[in-house]
């Protein structure tokens, strides 16, 4: 079967995820203007990648499975990206900010 990550790397990932939760909570108390949501989403993305690669062990999966996981990302980028482009270009909308 597949190579499993060690207990140590599982615990390290858990520790990182918990610390990042505190970090995202703390950063939300600082006013960065429009950048608050960007930082929050970057941290969430980083946490997601840790869970996918280590906890779900996609790192050691077959290339086909990796392709399917990648397809999931591609679908989200298409959905959110295309819709965002549509709404950003609607100059008649009340507030033309995407975040």
């Amino acid at each position, binding site marked *: *079967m597949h190579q*499993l*990550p060690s*207990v140590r790397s*599982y*615990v390290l*990932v*858990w520790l990182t*995820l*918990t610390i990042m*939760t*505190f970090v*995202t*909570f703390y950063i*939300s*108390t*600082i*006013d960065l203007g429009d950048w*608050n*949501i960007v930082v*929050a*989403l970057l*941290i*969430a993305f980083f*946490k*997601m990648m840790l*869970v*996918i690669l*280590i*906890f*779900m*062990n996609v790192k050691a*999966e*077959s290339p*086909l*499975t990796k392709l*399917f*996981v990648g*397809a*999931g990302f591609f*679908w*989200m980028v298409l*959905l*959110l990206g295309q*819709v*965002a482009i549509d*709404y950003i270009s609607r100059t008649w*909308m*009340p*507030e033309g*900010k*995407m*975040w």
Partner: protein
Amino acid sequence: MEQQFDSATLGMWVFLLTEIMFFGGMFCAYMIYRSMYPAAFASTSQHMNPLWGATNTAVLIVSSLSMALAVRAAHLGQQKALQILLLITIFFGLCFLGVKAIEYHEHWVDNKVPLIGGHWDYSNTPEFPNQAQYARQAQILFCFYFFMTGFHAVHMIVGVGLMLTIFAMAHKGKFNSSYFTPVEISGLYWHFVDIVWIFLFPLLYLIGHTKNLI
């Protein structure tokens, strides 16, 4: 066996892709409405308690750790450890649902559930002169809140049911180091539900947090 295991994992990922589409649609709708009413969303978000949200994030992360360790134990054929770790996962899953129930109850008492119950207390939002308009926009965020966290909670309930089934199977000794596919597959589902929450937490709880604490 190796090939069977690979196809089972792949099949589970195909299911998770449909789940990504399901939640993706809601995230997309959220993005549009937040871009339309950023001020109302930021203000309304302060009615949610970020401490409960952060607690639940930590609880889910611990349950994901115990789930990952359970899959590892199954892989190594450690029956006792597998059962204990599954019970820990179920326990933290129930903790999450308990905190969620407390939060829903608070919103219910405060009349924050859209369409049902009484009216909002608008008196503490002087920055919105048009109160009726603000109330509508605020209710949009609460609709997103209840739909997104509600569907997430449904997934959690399904996950806990799944874990109970896996625990029963493990208790009967159905798994060994060469057959543990159901443990691995339900683990993937559990981690996926965790990932959805990782995004829901900053998007729903932390929008207007800034003004609240300073």
